[in-house]
């Protein structure tokens, strides 16, 4: 029963692993370069989901803003169970910006690739490169 609770209670983490592996599969196995970039985006979002899941707490914890009822509740203004951990949130805020800039650069490279080879398939580009070498 205890292990079942552990498995079911952490469902966010299971879905994070599934999403991460979907992205990883797309990065490795897909032939189209645009699909590979989509896979990279899914991978990064899965990691952000993992970090946000570590920050969440049960029992009515909210964002770290001091309200008047928090001050009235006790002598101590800041008690940890009342607030979510803000550190993973801030880290993932940076990660989202990095994700979008990586995506933009990847799209620019993709457009240059298409302009030169007129295709986005990896095997076709490899064939053209091989033909040019011979």
């Amino acid at each position, binding site marked *: 029963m205890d292990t079942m609770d552990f498995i079911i209670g952490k*469902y*966010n983490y299971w*879905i994070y692993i*599934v*999403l991460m592996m*979907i*992205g990883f*599969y*797309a990065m490795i196995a*897909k*032939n*189209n370069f*645009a*699909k590979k970039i*989509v*896979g990279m*985006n*899914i991978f990064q*979002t899965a990691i*952000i*989901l993992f970090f*946000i*899941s570590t*920050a*969440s707490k*049960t029992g009515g*914890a*909210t*964002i770290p803003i001091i309200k008047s009822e928090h001050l009235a509740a006790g002598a101590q203004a800041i008690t940890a169970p009342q607030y*979510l951990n803000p550190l993973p*949130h*801030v880290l*993932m*805020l940076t990660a*989202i*910006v990095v*994700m*979008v800039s990586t*995506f*933009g650069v990847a*799209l620019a490279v*993709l*457009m240059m690739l*298409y302009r030169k080879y*007129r*295709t*986005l*398939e990896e095997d076709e580009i490899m064939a053209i490169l091989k033909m040019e070498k011979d």
Partner: protein
Amino acid sequence: MIWQLDILILLIVVICAIASITVKDILSSALLLGAYSFLMCLLWTGMGAVDVAFTEAAVGAGISTAFFIGAVFHMTRRTKD
């Protein structure tokens, strides 16, 4: 955090992720990736990470999808897998 809603959104997120890497059209893939990002930021709002959620909604889902659609019109929509 309502766990029924949470599991529902997580399932739709996984379906969107699988669909966006299996469709045979890059434009559909871009739009499914946008749907995936918006559902993901709904999930983060449920977990209390509102700052991350609105950054993801504005930058991750909005700007990324716009860039991707703009890039698709300069490339081909055709894909083999």
